[in-house]
């Protein structure tokens, strides 16, 4: 299973993603943002960080980098695309996912472990778990408040495309469990074709028991399972 981690100037979770992919059974490589092809990869990961410094808006400059055209084409052809944190912001800016991520409600960067509730498992990213499962994952972002217009939110809900919601330790997706003011406690969504997934939490930081959680592995395990099935088919 071949996975590519895109490296933008300013990416800083690229090495963490690379490590998590290797440890969950992927063959991982890096692709520099100036490349124009992502061919030959089953999974493309857009890692967290501050691409191009995030100086205009998070992800706003990265969407124009040469590699993004190739990512769009690969996504259209059915490759799996996973955008984590800044990667999620880039996917929204690039139009691969709807909506946008704006500054956290209290205007501070926020880094801590949070619970997210799995909302849908009929997708390649969470099929190895169950709906309603609580995952304990790190978040680390200053611009993670998901916003979208009412119609988009309706479509996301109807289409089962909201994959993760922030929840408390008992599984209630309430205001108190919402770290950043995201609409409807949304922590992660997918596209209509269900092959592009963006999420604010960092599953790659939750793959090693020594760091306090292994709940992130389920995402990489799901992807591997789906790709193996695809390959066998």
């Amino acid at each position, binding site marked *: 299973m071949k996975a590519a981690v895109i490296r933008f100037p300013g990416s800083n979770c690229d090495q963490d993603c690379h490590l998590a992919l290797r440890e969950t059974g992927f063959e991982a490589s890096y692709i520099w943002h100036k490349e124009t092809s992502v061919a030959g990869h089953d999974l493309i990961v857009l890692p967290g960080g501050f691409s*191009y*410094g995030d*100086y*205009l808006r998070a992800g*706003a*400059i990265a969407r*124009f*980098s040469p590699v993004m055209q190739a990512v769009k084409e690969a996504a259209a052809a059915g490759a799996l695309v996973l955008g984590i944190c800044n990667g999620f912001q880039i996917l929204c800016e690039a139009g691969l996912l709807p909506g946008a991520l704006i500054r956290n409600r209290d205007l501070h960067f926020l880094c801590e472990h949070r619970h997210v509730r799995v909302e849908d498992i009929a997708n390649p990213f969470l099929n190895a778990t169950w709906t309603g499962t609580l995952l304990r994952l790190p978040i680390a972002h200053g611009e993670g408040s998901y916003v979208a217009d009412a119609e988009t939110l309706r479509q996301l809900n109807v289409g089962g495309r909201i994959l993760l919601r922030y929840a408390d330790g008992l599984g209630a997706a309430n205001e108190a469990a919402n770290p950043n003011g995201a609409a409807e406690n949304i922590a992660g969504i997918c596209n209509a074709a269900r092959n592009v997934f963006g999420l604010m939490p960092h599953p790659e930081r939750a793959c090693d028991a020594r760091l306090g959680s292994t709940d992130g592995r389920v995402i990489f395990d799901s992807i591997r399972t789906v790709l193996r099935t695809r390959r066998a088919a």
Partner: protein
Amino acid sequence: MKAQVIVMPKRSVLDPQGAAVREAIHHHGLPSVKAARVGKFIELELDGTETEAQIHEVCRDLLSNPVMEDYELKVQK
């Protein structure tokens, strides 16, 4: 009554945001753009009892950081 405040980084102060925007514009296909600088635009709604001196004080002490930014105030009657 409205006041409009433009806060800009001082000319001599490094403006990484402006530099990044300039680079992005170049990559976007307009290499002739020589420089970009990024500041803030703040609009205040006034009830007319404020003196201009009071608004300047707010601009100087709160809205801008005189150590690294300049501001420009326009009051529309």
